[in-house]
Structures are given as structure tokens and as C-alpha cells.
């Protein structure tokens, strides 16, 4: 009885595909072998550039400049001098990246916190508070995602430098920021630009929470702030993590916003600005460029590798469900 079903199944399969069974199996095996080979080729192609950069960054200067990094394997010589030089060197050409590294940190941390907090509040209102024009407002915020950053730059810069005046009356004074204070401009800009996407993503997560939960809390007399803090926030932690990683990568890797709002000096400019400058003016100082590039990618790589799962979740929630 128990063996009958498999026998029948095997029998039909045999008669069904008699002509192709052996050939088919061979071809399938070949296919899967080609598949493996092709996927390995792609993976190698994708990994080698970064790997080459890393190997180069730990080779001595004269060797980087005179022979390809692949020679490292036949005649290995290893040094940390490039990193030392590019991070802490004091000559103007060395990079002084340690200083810019701190700028990147100072720019990134508030630029991640502010938009997430504001977006979480807004997304809650849009998802769970009933008021007139709610859907209309949500669509409007969603649509703001398509405004290219480039459109906002000139007026926003003017907003910072001259304030707001309507008919000769100053409503907001100019910010008049100098040196480190310029961080505030960058935070402000990043927060504005991040909001539409963050609201959109968090709204997706929040509106999927079970409605009965909110209902019963309301019946028990909980106010919206209470529901937000004690029910919704704990439930959307994964989403907050996802959007946090997104925003972190985006701000840390950003060049355009920083270039315009932070200025180019070592008081405020982040790593990306300094690196872009080094690539332009000292394009052949490979020992500094490779080490510098590696310094700039190591933090996002660590964040990315350790939190990849959340990141993918956020990506899928944002892109597939729409």
C-alpha cells in the first residue's frame, strides 16, 4: 500500500518522457554546470575590483606605482604606511582623512536620527489617525520623492544664507553659520530630503499592523501618543532599523549635499568630498587614493554586512509592495 504510489508515479514519468529522459538529465546537468560557471564568473568579476583596491592599499608606495597589484601574490610586501599617511599625515597633500572621518560621523548621526523620528510620527498620523484629507496628504508626500535634489539646492542654500523675507519683513533671519556650525545646514538638508521616502516606507509597515490592536487600545482609553509610544514603536523596530541603515548608507556615501552645504574645508566636509577632491587633483597618488577609498568604504561595509537582513527587508518592503 505504501509503496504503490511512488511506483505509479515513477511509471508515468518514465512513459511520459522516455525519449528525453537520459538526454534530458544530461542536459540538465550540463545546464546546471554552465549555470555554476557563469555565476562564478559574474561573482569574480564583481569582487575583483574591490579586492584589487584592498590589496593595493597595503602595498608600499613605489610598488603600487610600478607594478600591478596582482604581483602581490608572487612577491608579497606588506605595509600599513599608506593608511598612517592618509589618515594622520599633516602635510597638505596627505589627505588628513582622520579629520574628515570625524566630519562624516558628525554629519551622519543626526542626519539619520532626525528624519526617522519625524517620519515615524508622520507615518503614524497618516496610517492610524482619522482626519480629513489624509489620503490626499499621503499621496502628496509620496509624490515629493520625485523632486530631484538638484532642484532644491539653490533655493535652500539661499534660505540658509539670507533667511526668509516677505515684503521687506524678515520672517526668519539668515543662519550665518561658520565652520563646524555648518553641520546644522547639512543635517537640515539631509532630513528634508530623506522624509518622503522614510514616511512612505514606515507608512507601509505601520498600516500592516493589526487594526484590532489599536481599536482595543482606544477603547481602553489610550491616547494617540500613548499608542504610538507603547504599541506601535516596539512593533516597527525592524522597519526603523531598515530605514536607519538606508539613511546611514545614503548620508555616509553622499557627495552632492555635502559638497554644497558643508563647504570643502576640513572643519565640515565629509570623507566623500575629500576623496573626490584627491581623485581630481592627485589622481596618480595611488597609495593615498586606494587607502583613502578603503577607509571611506569600511564603515558602511561593516554596517551593511552586520545588518544586511534588515536592509534587504526594508528594500523589499519599499520596492515590491509599492
Amino acid at each position: 500500500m505504501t509503496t504503490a504510489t511512488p511506483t505509479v508515479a515513477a511509471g508515468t514519468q518514465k512513459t511520459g518522457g522516455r525519449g528525453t529522459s537520459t538526454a534530458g538529465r544530461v542536459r540538465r546537468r550540463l545546464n546546471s554546470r554552465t549555470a555554476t560557471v557563469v555565476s562564478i564568473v559574474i561573482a569574480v568579476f564583481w569582487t575583483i575590483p574591490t579586492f584589487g583596491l584592498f590589496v593595493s592599499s597595503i602595498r608600499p608606495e613605489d610598488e603600487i606605482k610600478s607594478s600591478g597589484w596582482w604581483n602581490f601574490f608572487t612577491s608579497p610586501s606588506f605595509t600599513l604606511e599608506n593608511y598612517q599617511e592618509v589618515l594622520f599625515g599633516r602635510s597638505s597633500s596627505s589627505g588628513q582623512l582622520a579629520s574628515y572621518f570625524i566630519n562624516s560621523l558628525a554629519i551622519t548621526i543626526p542626519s539619520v536620527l532626525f528624519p526617522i523620528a519625524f517620519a515615524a510620527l508622520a507615518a503614524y498620523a497618516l496610517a492610524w489617525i482619522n482626519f480629513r484629507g489624509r489620503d490626499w496628504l499621503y499621496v502628496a508626500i509620496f509624490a515629493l520623492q520625485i523632486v530631484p535634489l538638484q532642484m532644491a539646492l539653490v533655493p535652500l542654500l539661499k534660505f540658509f544664507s539670507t533667511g526668509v523675507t516677505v515684503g521687506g519683513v524678515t520672517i526668519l533671519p539668515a543662519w550665518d553659520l561658520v565652520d563646524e556650525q555648518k553641520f546644522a545646514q547639512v543635517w537640515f538638508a539631509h532630513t528634508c530630503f530623506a522624509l518622503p521616502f522614510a514616511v512612505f516606507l514606515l507608512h507601509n509597515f505601520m498600516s500592516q499592523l493589526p487594526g484590532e490592536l489599536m481599536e482595543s487600545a482606544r477603547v481602553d482609553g489610550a491616547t494617540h501618543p500613548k499608542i504610538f509610544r507603547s504599541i506601535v514603536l516596539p512593533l516597527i523596530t525592524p522597519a526603523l532599523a531598515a530605514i536607519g541603515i538606508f539613511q546611514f548608507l545614503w548620508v555616509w556615501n553622499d557627495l552632492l549635499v555635502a559638497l554644497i552645504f558643508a563647504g570643502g574645508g576640513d572643519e565640515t566636509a565629509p570623507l566623500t568630498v575629500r576623496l573626490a577632491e584627491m581623485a581630481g587633483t592627485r589622481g596618480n597618488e595611488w597609495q593615498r587614493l586606494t587607502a583613502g577609498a578603503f577607509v571611506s568604504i569600511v564603515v558602511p561595509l561593516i554596517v551593511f554586512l552586520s545588518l544586511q537582513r534588515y536592509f534587504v527587508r526594508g528594500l523589499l518592503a519599499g520596492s515590491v509592495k509599492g
Partner: protein
Amino acid sequence: MEFDFAAEQPKFLMLMYGLVAFVAVVGGLLLLLDVVPAWFARRREAQLVAASASGAPIPRRRKPREGVFALFFLLPTLLLLAIGLVVPAVRTVLLSFMDQGSNDWVGLRNYGWMFSEDSIVRVLLNTLIWVLLVPLVATTFGLVYAVLVDKARFEAVAKSLIFLPMAISFVGASIIWKFVYAYRGDGQEQIGLLNQIVVSLGGEPKQWLLDSPLNTLLLIVIMVWIQAGFAMVVLSAAIKAIPADIVEAARLDGVTPWQMFWQITMPSIRPALIVVVVTLSIATLKVFDIVRTSTNGNYDTSVIANEMYNQAFRYGENGQGSALAVFLFVLVIPIVIYQIRNIRQQREG
């Protein structure tokens, strides 16, 4: 090591101010949201007590004012969006009809300039090449790879390798690839991988980033390299979401892997495919960092976003820069409308 830590102190101080501001703003807002309704509740209670003591009719409980709550929740977001995006966008549109100092109206002159200046037409053409090639190639690579490693033994590792460049900044990626494209004169030992390959195949080393239009294609390779991981992850998830019984039924019908791909996989993942292409198109239209870091827009490689930066922030041509930004916006609109329509269809279907 001559790094002066004391000199960095003002930055940490500023960072601290930022964090304090964050706690104050967000904490203050939540507190406000707690205190105000509590005050109203107390007042209503007092009214009730007073009413019952004097024997007057109990005042009717007013409907909870949801709109006020919503306003407070939305306040920071709406304010920032207005200052940071809405007003600037409107102003940019206005600026694009004004001269370089934003003093006089010039009508459509900036737009006329855009389509008549040879170098700018070149920029528009380059942008077109970018936006056609990047989504196409990146999605193809992502899709092929997602299909190939699906259910393979080292799937997680294999996917991470392709996904990794997503974490690398465009600037970092450009430096990585500049190194691949690096050039040494004929007869010298090459340090760039690409030239080394060419030389070992008997060719002559080339200055890859100087020859148009090849250099634009090579910059596009960088963007594809970064974005294919995104396509791969989304498409891979879509492939895994195909119901197992459909795949099983097809397999029992004896379809070849080729037929399986075109008749089962492709139709099933079509919505995800559209989302990927649209997202990549928008990202590509705005690309700026790669061109700026690799060639600074020289040698006929510039794109709209880069040229806009040059016009507005380097040459002080606010009108022309704004016109380019507006043009960028106009290009993005149809893509987004298409996406919104697709999402709606998906919801209904």
C-alpha cells in the same frame, strides 16, 4: 602620528548640540502630545463634577479632536518638506525663467540655450545613453544571477558578493574603477587591470577615460556594478515568491529550463521587474558622483546632474542651472506616473 585630537573638539561639541536638539525636539513633541490631551481631560472632568454638583444638565462629551492630534504628529514633517522641497522646487522653476543673477525674466531663453548649445546637447545625449543602458544592463545581470544562484549551495554568500557594492559610495566605487582603468605608457608595466589584460592579449594600452564615447560606457559599467545587486535582491525575492505548485506542475509537464524561464518565471516576476527598472531609471537620471569623481565631466562624459552643478555652483549661472534641474524633473515625472499606475493595477489585480 601627528594627529591633533584637541583640534577636533568643536566638531564633537557640535555633534553633541545636534543630539541635544534631537532629544529636545522629539522628546518635547511627545511630551506636548501627552500633556495637552491630559489637560483637556482634566478640564472636562472638572466640568462634569461642577455640572453634577449644581444639578445642571451634563455637558455633552465632545468628539475627540483627531485632526489636532494629526497636525501635531505631522508638524515637523510638513514644515521640513515645505521648506526643503516644495518651496525650493517652485523657486527653481521660477529661477529657470530668469537670468543668471535671478534679476530679470528671460522667458524660455535658458531652455533655448539648453537645446542649442552643442556641449549641452552632448550632455543630454549622454544622459539618454545612461538612462537607457544602466537599467537594462543592471537588471539583466541581476536577473541572470538571481536565476543562476537560486537554490544553489552557497546562495547566501554568492548573493552577498554581488550585493556588496551597494554599500560603497559612488565616490569610492569610482576610485576603485579608476584603478581598474589606470594607464601606463606603452612598454611600462601596467598597474590597471584592464590594460594589463589588453597588453597580455597582445594589444596596446589605452587611456580608457579619454576617448568618447567609450569613456561614457566605462562610467556606466561603474553604475551597473553598483546597482546590479539591488536588482538581484528584489528579483530573487520575486522568484522565490512564485508558488511552488506552479513550478512543480510545469516540471511534471517536462518543460526545459529555458521554457520554464520564459513562460513561468518571467510572467510571474513582471511587477517586480518593472519596479526595478523604474527605480534604477530614476537613480540613473540623478547620477552625479560617478561622473564628477572619474572625469569631472571632461572628455564629453558630462550628464545633466553634473552639468547642473557646474552651471549653478561653479559658473554662477543660476538660470541655466535651474533650467537643467527642471528638465531633469520633467524627465522623471512620466516614469513615476507609470510606476504609480502599475502599483494601482497591482493592488486591484
